[in-house]
């Protein structure tokens, strides 16, 4: 039961208003429907769908997953059915939800992002786009686009001119993050998603082979959380743009860490594999925590880290 009905969990990420700050991260939640037998999707603040591309992509060779201490390595390689199939097969289900639907997109070059954005901005039921310029598992586009502030500025500017729908840029870690974030803001991005997985690898010593079919992959889960918190803190301190924080969130205290660091909302990724109900539990726990502390508005906590000065 709702012990604290007066606690206000609403938050906004630029023009994107959310009923609560808990979203699910791209690539870890499919297109929502896969989890609908396990949780009431409408409880979520939002769903960020698996990244889609203009044409279908078959993804990388297996094995695509390897577990590491408190972490998960993946090299999915953006396997997806392409935008047409997304619109005809996945969107009808998502449209019916009352939770915010944010569609993640990626391309190999600027033109592809623009065509995807123009196409999707005409569809009903999409609240915003997340523009993935940070996938470590593809040869073209991905991290290569997201690390250069000039490229990011140009992409953001052209998207801003092309569509009215809010778009959020998802940036890679370990780039000149403040400079790239500034470029995204100046280009017209509504917000930033921080962070995508951390480039990493693992080796099977018996077989003397990489554990992933793609050799390298992206690391997620609790082991990257401190890296992500620092990046969120640094960016929100230096650049005036809202941030969706993510990386290793497993419980409501992790959410608060990102919130205090400066994130206006967060996304839960790998934890969905451990427990498909984790996001719903986090929302409940967060509300109870705030209620018990007499904090009536979640959004008041954003960026309220005390540095002891």
């Amino acid at each position, binding site marked *: 039961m709702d012990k604290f009905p007066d606690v206000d969990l609403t938050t906004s990420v630029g023009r994107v208003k959310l009923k609560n700050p808990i979203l699910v991260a791209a690539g870890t939640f499919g297109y929502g429907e896969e989890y609908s*037998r396990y949780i009431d999707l409408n409880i979520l603040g939002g769903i960020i769908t698996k990244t889609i591309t203009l044409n279908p992509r078959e993804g990388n060779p*297996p094995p695509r997953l390897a*577990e590491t201490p408190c972490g998960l390595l993946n090299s*999915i390689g953006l396997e997806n059915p392409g935008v047409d199939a997304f619109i005809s097969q996945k969107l009808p289900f998502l449209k019916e939800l009352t939770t915010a639907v944010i569609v993640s997109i990626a391309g190999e070059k600027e033109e592809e992002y623009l065509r995807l954005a123009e196409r999707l901005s005409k569809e009903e039921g999409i609240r915003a786009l997340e523009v993935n310029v940070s996938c470590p598992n593809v040869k073209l586009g991905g991290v290569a686009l997201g690390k250069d502030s000039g490229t990011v500025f140009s992409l953001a500017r052209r998207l801003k001119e092309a569509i009215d729908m809010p778009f959020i840029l998802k940036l890679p870690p370990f780039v000149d993050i403040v400079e790239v974030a500034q470029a995204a803001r100046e280009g017209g991005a509504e917000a930033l998603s921080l962070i995508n997985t951390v480039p990493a690898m693992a080796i099977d010593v018996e077989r003397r082979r990489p554990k992933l079919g793609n050799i390298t992959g992206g690391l997620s889960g609790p082991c990257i959380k401190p890296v992500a918190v620092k990046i969120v803190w640094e960016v929100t301190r230096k650049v005036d743009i809202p941030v969706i924080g993510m990386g290793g969130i497993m419980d409501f205290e992790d959410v608060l860490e990102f919130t205090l660091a400066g994130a206006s909302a967060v996304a839960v990724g790998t934890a969905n594999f*451990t427990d498909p109900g984790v996001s719903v539990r986090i929302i409940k726990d967060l509300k109870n925590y705030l209620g018990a502390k007499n904090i009536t508005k979640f959004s008041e906590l954003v960026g309220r880290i005390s540095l002891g000065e």
Partner: protein
Amino acid sequence: MVQRKEEVFSSAQKLRVEVVSNTHLKANFYRLTIKTPAYFSKAQPGQFIHIKVGDDFSPLLRRPFSISNVTSFGVDIVYRIVGKGTRFLSELREGEYLDVLGPLGRGFSISREAKIHILVGGGVGVAPLIFLARKIKEETEGKVSILVFLGFKRKEEIICQNQFTGVNLSLHIACEDGSYGYRGLVSQAVEDYLINFTSLSGISIYACGPVEMLRAVARLSFNYAISSQVLMEEIIGCGLGACRGCVVRGVAGYLRVCKEGPVFNIRDIAWS
């Protein structure tokens, strides 16, 4: 499509299941029985359950196990300790609780035409075949013959052989080191047996075990034009078809072990 709340919450609650028993079989093999909700009675042989191992987030991923039987007590799995997760399972006691998703994936489809069903298991791959043999018996009312071939490394690792009984069922055991039964690989034992047949029509093969064994079964099935299904393993992430982390190479693109599988027709898999 509007979500039916009732269903959502009832299935979410049912994730917590009670341990009925956890029996040491031999060597590092165990059988776990959990009390499951009624809908598990619809489980198919070859489907799996995805178990949270550990009380916190280490190990991070759940672990998949084939359903080895569905009884009035609940669901059985047979497992072998190979690492942290399976060790955690081996320490569970009666009355403790476990967090389980399932039944998941697509199981074996029992051939309606076949008169002879050949079940081939390697090591702990015997687990789903126990359930499958029972289902074949139930669905065909004893009108077919079931040949079960089980392969193990050595005599000390032979498990579950007394789970395969019945008038129309014959059991053949192979040990790689020759310490019991047929000396050599179980796939070879199957092939040696097939040579005695005058006609190979009406045979259907179902296999579960190490990938090398499955490959050998696929090869002999192609050679003798027998229709076969195999249970494939990969590291499973979400288990729900969402992450695309569990794929194997199929002839028409990647296939998800947790969704299109874990049981596949050998024709759909790219073996090379």
